[in-house]
């Protein structure tokens, strides 16, 4: 406890240095602005900026990336409320009530409850992160390669198989990601794999090219080909943005409940913020004293999901920082940002890079305050950003997307690869394949492989270690249950309904 406090104070010493304060400010401003743009999420933003930061100092750069990460969450809520086209899946729940509030002329209070709720939830969740991280680190220090490998398998399967609508399509994308992760030189033996003599492939497929291709190019192709030519109508923010007494009274219990729903979901590999936002929405709908307002713009339905969204985003950082396990696409790209600096998130990072880790955590407290200040008074500015016509918006997005890929090796090959991944992203969107498993597979796959081979090297090639280590055995059993139980349930149910149909009863 005392140690954590000392470490956190050191962290504040780092985060409050003018240069780091500046990077944090740049991060949250950029994050908000880009989060407001429809179709651009935090994963894409961090990915596009990744190659351009090689020359920055790691602490400043990572503080900026973290700022972009939760700034984009704040910005996304503005878009959802005013535009009704959620920028990311975690905003869908907010759209249900927030956009209807805006249509009824209550855009101000909707934006306010989202921003203040995000601040409350973000701050509480950061406190929880501060308290929980050292405990997880203590446990994780006892993990060997065997346990890590089992943990990664668990993360792969939950992210790919359990979350999306279709297990098989989620797993297919995970394996495509894993295959892409194998491209390049094997770092244990120097063996070339799947590179086919192309020099650009020897370093492996860069996460920037994959993520920017899937998210930016794929998205642009999809929106261009399938969306309407008309500009979306932006709801006006008229009247006061301040919440009335009853708005406050209805909002704050929702914020608190949502924080304690969102945070735990963020910490486990459950795909980030999507499930807890819907869960919080359902809880608020059930507990409200104004059920007649739900579906027509109930403020609890904005307050809860937005708070849950931010609490979950902070929760995602627990496994990322303490174990090095990314549980969302954005977390995977943040992990790549650490790797660019030769840093590997995990328990050892807390010991070797104390100032960096705690500076980063402290910067999140400051970032939340900055975001509260940025979001409410500057709402008029963000509304202007929302009004950028689509042709200009996507033209700009693609300039930045190609810049990110091109600047890796100054090579046209990377631009071509980017387009190929763009086509893949287009097809994935069109036929319902999830994107996150591919990105997580690419980043986490090589780490899982090296833990696997290290574990076997220690056991002299005896694969039974994965079952004799109690932690590893229970994680692998849990993984198997997570896949088999829903599948068996579905098979049994299908057969029962078939039997019923055969016997002629309804």
């Amino acid at each position: 406890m005392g140690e954590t406090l000392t470490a956190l104070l050191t962290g504040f010493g780092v985060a409050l240095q003018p240069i780091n304060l500046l990077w944090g400010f740049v991060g949250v401003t950029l994050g908000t602005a880009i989060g407001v743009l429809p179709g651009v999420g935090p994963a894409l933003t961090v990915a596009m900026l990744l190659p351009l930061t090689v020359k920055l100092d790691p602490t400043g750069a990572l503080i900026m990336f973290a700022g972009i990460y939760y700034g984009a969450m704040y910005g996304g809520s503005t878009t959802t409320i005013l535009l009704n086209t959620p920028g990311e899946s975690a905003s869908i729940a907010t759209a249900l009530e927030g956009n209807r509030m805006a249509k009824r002329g209550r855009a101000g209070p909707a934006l306010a409850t989202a921003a203040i709720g995000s601040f409350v939830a973000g701050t509480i969740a950061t406190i929880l992160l501060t308290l929980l991280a050292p405990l997880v680190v203590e446990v994780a220090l006892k993990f060997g390669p065997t346990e890590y490998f089992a943990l990664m398998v668990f993360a792969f399967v939950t992210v790919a198989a359990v979350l999306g609508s279709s297990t098989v399509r989620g797993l297919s994308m995970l394996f495509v990601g894993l295959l892409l992760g194998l491209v390049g030189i094997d770092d244990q033996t120097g063996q070339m794999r799947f590179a086919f003599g192309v020099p650009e492939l020897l370093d492996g497929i860069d996460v920037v090219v994959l993520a920017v291709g899937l998210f930016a190019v794929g998205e642009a192709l999809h929106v261009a080909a399938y969306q309407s030519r008309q500009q979306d109508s932006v709801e006006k923010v008229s009247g006061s943005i301040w919440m009335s007494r009853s708005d406050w009274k209805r909002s704050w219990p929702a914020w608190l409940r949502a924080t304690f729903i969102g945070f735990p979901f963020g910490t486990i590999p459950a795909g980030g913020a999507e499930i807890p936002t819907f869960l919080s929405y359902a809880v608020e709908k059930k507990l409200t004293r104004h059920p007649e307002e739900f579906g027509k713009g109930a403020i609890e339905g904005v307050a809860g999901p937005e708070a849950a969204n931010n609490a979950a985003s902070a929760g995602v950082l627990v496994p990322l920082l303490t174990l090095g396990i990314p549980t969302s696409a954005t977390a995977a790209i943040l992990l790549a940002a650490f790797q660019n600096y030769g840093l590997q998130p995990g328990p050892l990072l807390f010991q070797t890079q104390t100032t960096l880790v705690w500076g980063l955590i402290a910067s999140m407290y400051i970032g939340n305050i900055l975001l509260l200040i940025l979001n409410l008074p500057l709402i008029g500015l963000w509304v202007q950003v929302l009004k950028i016509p689509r042709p200009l918006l996507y033209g700009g997005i693609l300039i930045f997307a190609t810049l990110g890929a091109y600047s890796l090796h100054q090579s046209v090959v990377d631009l071509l690869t980017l387009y190929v991944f763009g086509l893949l992203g287009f097809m994935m969107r069109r036929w319902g394949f999830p994107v996150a498993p591919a990105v997580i597979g690419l980043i986490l796959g090589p780490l899982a492989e090296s833990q696997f081979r290290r574990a076997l090297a220690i056991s002299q090639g005896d694969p039974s270690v994965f079952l004799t280590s109690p932690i590893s055995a229970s994680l692998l059993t849990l993984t198997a249950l997570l896949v088999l139980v829903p599948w068996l349930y579905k098979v049994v149910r299908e057969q029962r309904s078939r039997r019923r149909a055969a016997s002629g009863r309804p």
Partner: protein
Amino acid sequence: MNAPGRGRAELILSLGVLALGIFATIVAFRLPEAGGYARVGPNFMPKVVSAGLIVLGLWLLAEFFTGGWREAVPDEAAERGEHPFVAGAFIWVSAGLFAQMALIHNAGFVLAAMVLFGCVARGFGSRRWARDLAAGLAIGLAVFLFFVKFLNVNLPAGWLKPLLGTAGI
């Protein structure tokens, strides 16, 4: 049963995953063993991953042959809340990206960005060529100067080298 168009796409994509798995398997089996103490070398994970892709391709095929993919995305654009496919838009955006690849080394980053921007804007339905190209030029130039002067990222100046002076390569 499936609409014929959707069935074809599902069949092609299932076969695509299967083919990727088979191709990866062939490559994986040509990799050396070189196991060492671990008894598993650089060829082990490739084998596991390609076997996984084959299994998943077969799984998708099995779903296809037993009534279509489960939880499939609706085939009609309207059912997905989208508009019908506009081939022209898709081609304009693609053309912009290929034009940029062709231009970036000779004409330079700024002009390539301008053409990319113009084509993408056209793909998104804009007819205001002059405005779009001017906006693309301005953004390209601003990005170029910021990244080259400020972040020391090397970008080709191309035909604009006389104007841009020492900046870029």
